[in-house]
């Protein structure tokens, strides 16, 4: 592994973690699409900042981007408040408009600078190590690593400091307002954090893939746990995993690193989506299957219970008769009976079915319920 490769992986790792942290709160607050909107509109902030300071590496650009991020959120809220458009339409109206303004500004006035729209959308982490951070003439590593490291530190600090506020305003905005936590302030604070993170990250992975890093790891974690700290931890782990495996996939295919990171994040989600112990598709299918058998067995014991001790019991309580009475396929009926026998609800007595004491008890309870 060359020095560059290590540096790229470090940058990817730090970026993924910095994105996953605020992303978890976006997902919980049902504002994931806001990350998509902001990741496009921050371009306007960068362009505006560039026109003011005329320096592409100035920290003011990050400030400008944060301002535009908050502006995006406010414009969406404003449009929504007119009640003339729904929230989803408001988002879909605001961000393309701001993005278009930014693109036109760039092509019209900033043609001579290196501010490339393709690069903004796609990003190129492979070039990140060439941009060195060398204060006082000593090279101490790639600039991107320091920028993203700083943003990660900022996110971490803010989340630790305002953990309680964030948690309450996310899960119970009403309570947060009653307790005097200023939900609006927390909302816009979170949005500023998202904007800053997006600006830092989109140099590296591009604006659309920032969304993947912000959303995919947290929703994977969301399917695995109900516990907020655990969800944050899992998001970080999934983010880190996507970053590293994405890098190696890209090296293998000689393809876009950012794209591979997003693909791996998607793959991790797909695996969780299928195999999560409680919320996964497989678990849900197995649960349904089990319920189907249990339901069939309950039907069986209720049927037996209804006819127990009556004259027709001899006729009704035969395995072959279940086909007529419950419309069960003979094979299915046989399996249900065998499962009920395993459970010790039913016993076979010379071709007839009889309830055991626990079976009778279950039938009685099932009827009452």
């Amino acid at each position: 592994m060359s020095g560059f490769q290590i540096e790229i992986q470090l940058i990817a790792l730090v970026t993924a973690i910095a994105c996953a942290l605020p992303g978890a709160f976006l997902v919980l607050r049902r504002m994931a699409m806001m990350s998509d909107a902001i990741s496009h509109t921050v371009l306007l902030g960068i362009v505006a900042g560039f026109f003011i300071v005329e320096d592409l590496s100035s920290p003011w650009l990050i400030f400008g981007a944060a301002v535009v991020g908050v502006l995006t959120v406010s414009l969406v809220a404003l449009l929504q408040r007119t009640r003339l458009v729904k929230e989803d339409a408001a988002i879909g109206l605001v961000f393309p408009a701001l993005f278009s303004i930014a693109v036109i500004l760039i092509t019209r006035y900033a043609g001579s600078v290196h501010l490339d729209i393709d690069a903004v959308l796609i990003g190129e982490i492979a070039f990140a190590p060439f941009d060195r951070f060398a204060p006082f003439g000593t090279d101490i590593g790639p600039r991107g690593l320091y920028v993203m490291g700083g943003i990660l530190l900022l996110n971490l600090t803010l989340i630790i400091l305002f953990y309680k506020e964030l948690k309450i305003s996310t899960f119970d905005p009403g309570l947060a307002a009653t307790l005097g936590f200023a939900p609006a302030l927390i909302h816009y604070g979170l949005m500023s954090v998202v904007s800053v993170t997006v600006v830092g990250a989109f140099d590296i992975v591009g604006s659309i893939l920032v969304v993947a890093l912000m959303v995919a790891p947290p929703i994977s974690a969301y399917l695995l746990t109900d516990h907020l700290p655990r969800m944050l931890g899992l998001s970080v782990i999934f983010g880190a995993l996507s970053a590293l495996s994405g890098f190696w996939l890209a090296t293998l295919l000689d393809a876009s690193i950012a794209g591979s990171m997003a693909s791996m994040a998607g793959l991790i989600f797909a695996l969780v989506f299928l195999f999560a112990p409680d919320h996964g598709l497989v678990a849900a299918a197995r649960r349904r299957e089990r319920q189907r058998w249990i339901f069939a067995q309950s039907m069986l014991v209720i049927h037996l219970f209804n006819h127990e001790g009556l004259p027709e019991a001899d006729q009704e309580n035969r395995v072959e008769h279940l086909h007529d009475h419950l419309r069960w396929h003979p094979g299915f009926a046989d399996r249900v009976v065998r499962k009920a026998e395993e459970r010790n609800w039913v016993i076979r007595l010379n071709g007839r079915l009889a309830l055991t004491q626990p079976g009778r008890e279950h039938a009685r309870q099932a009827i009452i319920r």
Partner: protein
Amino acid sequence: MPARRFPGIHPFRHGKVEPVDLIALFNELFFDYTLRTVAMGAAVLGIVSGALGSFAVLRKQSLLGDAMSHAALPGVVLAFLLTRSKAPLVLVLGALIAGWLATLWLMNIVNRTRIKEDSALALVLSVFFGFGLVLLTYTQRLPDARQAGLDQFLFGQAAALLQRDVVTMAILSTLALTLLAVFWKEFKLLSFDREFGASLGFPMGVLDILLTTLLVLAIVIGLQAVGVVLMSAMVVAPAAAARQWTDRLGVMVVLSAIFGAAAGVSGAVISSLAQGFSTGPTVVLAASAIVVISILFASNRGLVWNWVRHQRSRRRLQLENVLTNLHLLASQHADATHGHSIEVLRAMSAQRGGVARSLAVLKERGWVENVGDNLWALTSEGISAAQKVIQERGFEPLPSSNIDGQSRAPEGDGGRAE
């Protein structure tokens, strides 16, 4: 005629807005190949995305367009990888399949887990796009170099549209719009009362997939012209604007198509006149401008008219309040022409300010008169007007028998029978 300089081709040149010569513009619109092609392409895409976007907006699926336009990328690249052809129809088919798969995955996530739609949209959008990027960069490194220009599908290059592209777009649009017309009633049911439709025996699930497929088709048609990011605006903006003007679905769809076409053509024309205005963003800004105008000025819902209506009713209310307050004051005095100071009226008024203006209007109508230094009293017309207001509001009549007794006999049903 000077060669047209399209910003898409020369994006890095500073430029000025040339003075508009309308005749020359029309000449070019009809005879200049590039401008005509671009304008027609933009119009076609505006019409089809406007019409189908109406349904997306009404069904609160505005952002689905955004997700599907991003998700189309891997389909475009895979279609190229498999067929080695860049024929628009092949790429469109690839995009259609990818967008469709993305939508199915999205519906699955939303229906089968506790993940909400916004997260699922963001996930599908970014992951498909990321995967598309992997494929695209992988393809670009293959020895076969014909893939150059695939990324134009992404960012849109309206200026590079060829006539055959426009023809493909037009054929697909006609197909989409025809299907829309054929299943009009069903789609209407789907959008407004899905359960009712299901109870009538329509296969709502199939219709849902069909309508979504048409939307994907509309998006894919536009991708080449305005690109992934901006295509979502073409789905939302014309429809959101049209929604402001009407409550009827048919009118809305037609209006939305017209708005879409208008945005497309004006965007194409503006971008051909002004350097640096790339076609895609300009079309989107034109559409956004239509939205802003509609939100402000739409005949029924527009904010400006709303504000005017609000002001008008506020003034009327104030006027009536001053009138009834004066009536109340008069009822407490033996002499109906006794003047009451404006300060008293102000103190009685629920709203701040506006009392003097209301008095001026009332005086103009001859309902009040100034009986001294800022002292006001009702005229007899004023009294009957006040009583009318009180009756309309359904208030308990005030104890004001002395007014009726002194000024004049009750006239018609305006006065109280006493």
